[in-house]
């Protein structure tokens, strides 16, 4: 077991060595993940762990992949997507060009879900979806657009509950254990690494989604990241968070109003 002070020392080493700052992450979850990694990799003690971590960049990337939580699914929280379809896309439709940022997109299921609803609303052609994550490995998977067949049942149920009326299987080609999603969906996606802790605003968007990422951050880091979103959002743009995340206690809250049904979507007031 790695002790709390050892974890703190490790985080500082990682920051110094690789420039990745995990010191603003909530400790309970991070400790659990780092500990699981430590056990899985069969380290004898903290010193050995630290040495390995600082010795190779490739190993560090592996570590990042394991300690960040990448669990995701298509149309996660179907009611959320239903609201996007019914309340948000009609507003976006009035713009000549739609820019959307998926911050912390993981393996991309969220981005493909968005592309599907945009396509069904006839808006995909004039949209551009920027999908970012700090983890290079998940981005590679997202780019490929190939997802496990075993997930398709859940994905297609979610799709139906989100108000989808097409044949969901029409969006992919099944190939043994994998489903390869249609290229017409990914044509409008741009993938790039972006670290919410340290990288800056890179464009202005009408809609930013950052779902199930902020729950892993402490209040201070949450506040900083929300400021980043505020700077990256057009006036009257929308900010969408995960089902247990909120703007409620944040400094930017006064400048936003939550949309009327209780989904976690806020609109910038000006």
């Amino acid at each position, binding site marked *: 077991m790695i002790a*709390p002070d050892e974890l703190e020392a490790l985080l500082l080493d990682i920051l110094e060595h690789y420039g990745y700052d995990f010191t603003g992450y*909530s*400790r*309970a*979850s991070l*400790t*659990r*993940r780092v500990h699981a990694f430590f056990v899985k990799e069969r380290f004898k003690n903290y010193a050995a762990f630290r040495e390995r971590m600082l010795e190779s960049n490739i190993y560090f990337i592996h570590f990042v992949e394991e300690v960040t*939580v990448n*669990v995701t699914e298509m149309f996660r929280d179907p009611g959320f997507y239903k609201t996007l379809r019914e309340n948000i896309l009609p507003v976006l439709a009035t713009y000549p060009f739609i820019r959307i940022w998926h911050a912390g997109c993981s393996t991309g299921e969220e981005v493909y879900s968005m592309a599907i609803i945009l396509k069904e609303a006839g808006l995909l052609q004039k949209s551009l979806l920027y999908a970012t994550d700090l983890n290079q490995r998940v981005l590679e998977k997202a780019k490929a657009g190939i997802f496990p067949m075993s997930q398709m049942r859940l994905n297609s149920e979610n799709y139906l509950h989100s108000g989808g009326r097409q044949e969901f299987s029409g969006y992919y080609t099944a190939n043994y254990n994998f489903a390869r999603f249609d290229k017409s969906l990914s044509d409008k996606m741009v993938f790039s690494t972006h670290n919410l802790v340290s990288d800056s605003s890179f464009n202005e968007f009408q809609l930013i989604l950052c779902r*199930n990422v902020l*729950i*892993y951050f402490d*209040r201070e880091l949450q506040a900083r990241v929300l400021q980043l979103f505020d700077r990256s959002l057009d006036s009257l743009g929308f900010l969408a968070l*995960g*089902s*247990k*995340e*909120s703007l409620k*206690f944040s400094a930017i809250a006064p400048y936003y109003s939550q949309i009327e049904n209780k989904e976690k979507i806020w609109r910038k007031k000006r």
Partner: protein
Amino acid sequence: MEKKALRSVQKLVVIGGSSGSLEALLTMLPKLRADLPLGVVIVLHRNNQSDNALVELFASRTSLIVKEADEKDILKAGTIYIAPPDYHLLLEQDGSLSLDASAKVNFSRPSIDVTFSSAAAVFGKYLTGILLSGANSDGANGMAIIKKKGGRIIVQDPNEALVAYMPARAIKENDVEEVFGALELAELINSISN
């Protein structure tokens, strides 16, 4: 660890349950004293519908405040926090709550093991873990960790539990000495003083 004054509550009770545990909780809740000086966290396996029905049902049976846990909530004495569906519930060193949507543990999210072990790391000997009825093996490992950290472990009597498997397994794996019916469990919680 276990440094007292840092936290908003000094003692915590975590109750875990799976199938059949609702009945036990509905027996226990009305018996809990209104001035309970502890934090109470409940982790139940349930369907993923994020509705308020469970919170409302519990609230109707007790004079304590019942709320679904939000991330960064600070534990308050006399409030019962319910783990939200589809998230693991964790405890921070300062006594605040964290949520985590990582992979299921024992086919469960929330997982009782996850909350038990995380709470044990924060509350040590000031933690009481109670395991109720269920058909799952979740909770047994977490109880072992609570015990190792000096906390107290109590299990619903498998003879009374609607589904005996989960409590029976925890008893077997951890040599649990305190085994009680739901009514007595409520009295036990009431008797934990500050």
